[in-house]
């Protein structure tokens, strides 16, 4: 495992946001009262669809936008009226924003020269940063002579060489192809662990966020939807939006009939308990946690369905099922076919779908606004 899961307890807060609000042109609410704490040494991701406010939040941290209300503290210092060039943060911009008329060396040296460090110190520090991001030999090149991945490394070195308290990254891998992305994801994680610099990382790619982050804040329409460890967000989404945005989810409207029983469009189901009878909830179950069988098992929460469509993705078979309450999606691993119990199902086949109670996440949000929700 590349990094052990970190718990935020007993850590020093390095970024503190309190009720931060930002309205553009007097009408577009970009941030609607965001409060958030990022701890020292954390790899913290802001995740959400475009327009959710994640980039605005990052720009507020960088000092490029001024919040209309609320407080921003970085390293314990209030950032009100502190311009970008006096903040203990550096930014890796979305499209690199390298200075086109400067060489790689001069680009990386820029921040150090702005601090008027002696030439020898500049040379040493730049050499260190160049080695850090492994772009030795490119010092004399200009940005237009670099590949996308190389530009990204230069942008990273240019920011890291200043040893910021917090590094702000705005979708830094967004313009790269998948293979390079994966490679740079690992490198970014390695760098972050080595340097122990706090990263605030903006992305709309949920997989990227899950892989890289210590903690993730899922944003939607200028608000924080849920903040937590990657596995918390994935396994115990608090809202239908989070359940849908991170991976795929079957969402089912439910009404509690007992603390551990609900009535749903798919029929009565058992859940883990703690529900208020009569109250409406939303159930979420991940497709890979849905079990399929050809013949009935002696297990709770069986739903009889028919295979409507099969999507073959290589590693898994994705079954789109027609169930009484609507569509259900189940993923089965494309495993060893000699394994006992390994089954493949055909179009139109009748299957027993099991929704194990321990895998049914209860969301205290009665109406499924999301498309594809099985409604009561």
């Amino acid at each position: 495992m590349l990094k052990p899961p970190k718990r935020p307890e007993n850590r020093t807060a390095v970024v503190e946001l309190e009720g931060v609000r930002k309205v553009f042109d007097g009408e577009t609410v970009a941030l609607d009262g965001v409060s958030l704490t990022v701890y020292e040494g954390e790899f913290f991701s802001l995740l959400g669809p475009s327009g959710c406010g994640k980039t605005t939040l990052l720009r507020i941290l960088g000092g490029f936008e001024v919040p209309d209300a609320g407080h921003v503290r970085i390293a314990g210092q209030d950032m009100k009226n502190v311009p970008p060039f006096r903040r203990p943060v550096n930014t890796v911009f979305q499209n690199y924003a390298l200075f086109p008329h400067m060489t790689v060396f001069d680009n990386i040296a820029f921040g150090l020269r702005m601090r008027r460090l002696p030439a020898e110190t500049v040379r040493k520090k730049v050499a260190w940063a160049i080695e850090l991001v492994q772009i030795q030999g490119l010092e004399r090149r200009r940005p237009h002579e670099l590949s996308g991945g190389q530009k990204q490394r230069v942008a990273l070195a240019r920011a890291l060489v200043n040893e910021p308290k917090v590094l702000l990254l705005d979708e830094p891998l967004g313009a790269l192809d998948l293979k390079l992305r994966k490679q740079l994801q690992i490198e970014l994680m390695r760098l972050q662990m080595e340097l122990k610099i706090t990263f605030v990382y903006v992305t709309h790619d949920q997989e990227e966020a899950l892989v890289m982050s210590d903690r993730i804040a899922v944003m939607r329409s200028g608000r924080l939807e849920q903040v937590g460890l990657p596995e918390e967000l994935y396994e115990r989404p608090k809202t239908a939006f989070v359940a849908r945005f991170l991976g795929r989810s079957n969402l089912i409207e439910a009404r509690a009939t007992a603390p551990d029983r609900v009535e749903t469009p798919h029929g009565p189901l058992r859940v883990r308990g703690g529900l208020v009878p009569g109250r409406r909830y939303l159930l979420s179950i991940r497709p890979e946690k849905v079990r399929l069988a050809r013949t009935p098992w002696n297990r709770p929460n069986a739903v009889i369905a028919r295979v409507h469509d099969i999507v073959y993705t290589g590693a898994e078979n994705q079954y789109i099922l027609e169930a009484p309450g609507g569509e259900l999606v189940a993923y089965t691993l494309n495993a060893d076919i000699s394994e006992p119990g390994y089954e493949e199902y055909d179009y139109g086949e009748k299957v027993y779908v099991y929704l194990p109670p321990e895998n049914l996440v209860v969301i205290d949000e009665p109406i499924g606004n999301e498309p594809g929700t099985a409604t009561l």
Partner: protein
Amino acid sequence: MNRSATSPARRLFELLLTVGPGALWLVVFMLVPALLMLEASFLQRGPYGRLVGPYTVANYLRFFGFTPEGYDPLYLAILWRSAVFAVGVTVITLLLGYPLAFAIATSRRKEALLLLVVLPFWTNFLIRIYAWIVIFQRHGVVNALLGAFGLEPLHLYPSWFAVYVATVYTYLPFLVLPVYTAVERIDWTLLEAAQDLGAGRIRGFLHAVLPQTLPGIVAGVLLVFIPALGTFVISDLLGAGRVVLIGNVIQQQFGVVRDWAFGSAAAYVLMALVLLGLWGYARVAGEEGLDRLV
């Protein structure tokens, strides 16, 4: 379709069709006259201003001050004066035009403001220059205003001052337009990057904004400097014969004096100076700037 798949004949035809008309125009109306002038510069003025042989370098020698009566660098002095004038005009135009172009390009009403910049072109150039006489003359607009405040009238026309003002006025749009285009294309995230890395307002501008407008500056400076160096109408009208620039000298040789041979030689020296200046400028401004310009 792949380009290499086309036949050579077809490619030649395409080349002629695209480059041909323009090239023909330049050959007939620029290269041929220029060569005729080059020949003329080595001939002599005959009776009634006709060009006669034999070939000589006397015109060039005369321009550089070697006259039969001894050394007299009259024309070199005028050339030097003209160069100083052209540099002065260019610097003033740049100082006025650069901020103006910036203000227009970053304004919300940039279309309207840009229209104001090109509006003078709708009026004849000579009329606009005569208008400056009306403004600057003894009983002109400026002095009338001064008189209204009980101030002494100023001697503004004819003067170097008037020539400077009118020349800067005339060529200002030629600097504003290319700089405006460059400013419009500025990638402002570079300024944010510079600020992020510790640059304040001034250093952020110098390192992240100014370099991006350099192609516009290069283009604008050339468009002002070259015509300013050869100007003769403005100096003639607003200098009223007291301001003599190299452009006036050349124009007089082809007009009043009818010494086409000497006029051609002077024109060639001026052209050489411009080309030399261009070459030096390209070295200073960087090839990139000129590359983008051409």
